[in-house]
C-alpha cells in the first residue's frame, strides 16, 4: 500500500515537473518570438524596399530615364525614412535591436545582384545581365523568409520570381514590365505598412 502511494506521488511530482518544464520552455519561446517580431519588422521593410528598388532598376531601360530616376531615388529615400522610423520606434517601444544583421543582409543581396548582372555582361548573356539580379534577390528573400519565419517576405520572394518569369517567358513589352514592377512595389509597400501597423498594435 505504502509502495503504491509512493509510486503514485512520484508519478504526480514527475508529471507536474514535466508540465512546468514544458510550460517554461513554451513561455520563453513565446517571449523570444514576440521580441523578435517587435524588433524585426521595420528593418525587414528596409531590406525589402532597398533591394526591390535596385532589382527594378536592373529591369528598367536606363537609370537616366524618368522611371529609372524614380527607382534611384525612391528606394534610398524610402529605406532612409524606414530606418529613421525603426530607430525612433525601437527607442520608444523599449526594445532595442542592432541593425547590423539587416545592413549586412541588404549589402550582401545588393553585391550578389550587382555581381550577377556583371557576370551576365562579361559572358555576353544579356538575359542573365538583366534578370540575374532579380533571381538572385528573390532567392535571397526566400532564405530571409525562412530565417525570419515571415510569410510577407516569402510572398515578396515568390512575387518577384513570378514577375521575372512573366517578363522572360511571355516576352512582355517594356510598358507591361514596368506596370508589373510598379504593382509589385505597391503591393510590397502595402504589405510592409500593414505588417508594421499590426506590429505597432501588439506593442505595449
Amino acid at each position, binding site marked *: 500500500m505504502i509502495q503504491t502511494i509512493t509510486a503514485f506521488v512520484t508519478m504526480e511530482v514527475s508529471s507536474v515537473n514535466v508540465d512546468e*518544464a514544458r510550460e517554461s520552455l513554451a513561455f*520563453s519561446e513565446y517571449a523570444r518570438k514576440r521580441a523578435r517580431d517587435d524588433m524585426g519588422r521595420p528593418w525587414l521593410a528596409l531590406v525589402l524596399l532597398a533591394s526591390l528598388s535596385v532589382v527594378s532598376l536592373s529591369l528598367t531601360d536606363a537609370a537616366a530615364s524618368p522611371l529609372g530616376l524614380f527607382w534611384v531615388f525612391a528606394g534610398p529615400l524610402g529605406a532612409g525614412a524606414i530606418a529613421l522610423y525603426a530607430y525612433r520606434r525601437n527607442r520608444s517601444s523599449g526594445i532595442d535591436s542592432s541593425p547590423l544583421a539587416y545592413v549586412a543582409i541588404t549589402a550582401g543581396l545588393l553585391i550578389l545582384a550587382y555581381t550577377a548582372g556583371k557576370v551576365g555582361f562579361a559572358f555576353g548573356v544579356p538575359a542573365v545581365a538583366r534578370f540575374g539580379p532579380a533571381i538572385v534577390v528573390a532567392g535571397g528573400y526566400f532564405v530571409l523568409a525562412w530565417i525570419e519565419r515571415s510569410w510577407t517576405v516569402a510572398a515578396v520572394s515568390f512575387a518577384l520570381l513570378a514577375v521575372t518569369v512573366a517578363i522572360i517567358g511571355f516576352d512582355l513589352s517594356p510598358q507591361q514590365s514596368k506596370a508589373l514592377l510598379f504593382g509589385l512595389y505597391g503591393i510590397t509597400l502595402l504589405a510592409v505598412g500593414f505588417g508594421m501597423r499590426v506590429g505597432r498594435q501588439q506593442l505595449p
Partner: protein
Amino acid sequence: MTHPTSALDDTIHQRVRLGILAVLSESRRADFGYLKEILEVTAGNLSQHLAILEEAGHVQIAKGIEDKRSRTWITVTRKGRAALAAEVATMKALLEGITTAQRA
C-alpha cells in the same frame, strides 16, 4: 553518475527568468517597462528576478535619463547567453528522454 536534472541551472530554471534571458538574447537591450509588459509580471516581481540574474552575472542593468524620463536598460551578458543556451538544451533533452521513456 549524476542525475540528469543536476545539469539544470537553479538561477535561471524559473519561468520568468528564462523569459527575461530569452527576450534579451534576441535584442541588443530591453527596458524595464517592456520586460514587465511582455512577461506579464509586476514591477516588484521583475526587480527581484533581475537582481538575482544580475548577481549571477547573467545580465547588466543601466539606469539613466532619456527624453526627460528615467529609463532602465537591461542587457544580457555573454555568460547569460551561454547559460540560457545550456538550460534550454538540457530541458529539451530531459523532456525528450521522458517522452521516449513514456512511449516505451
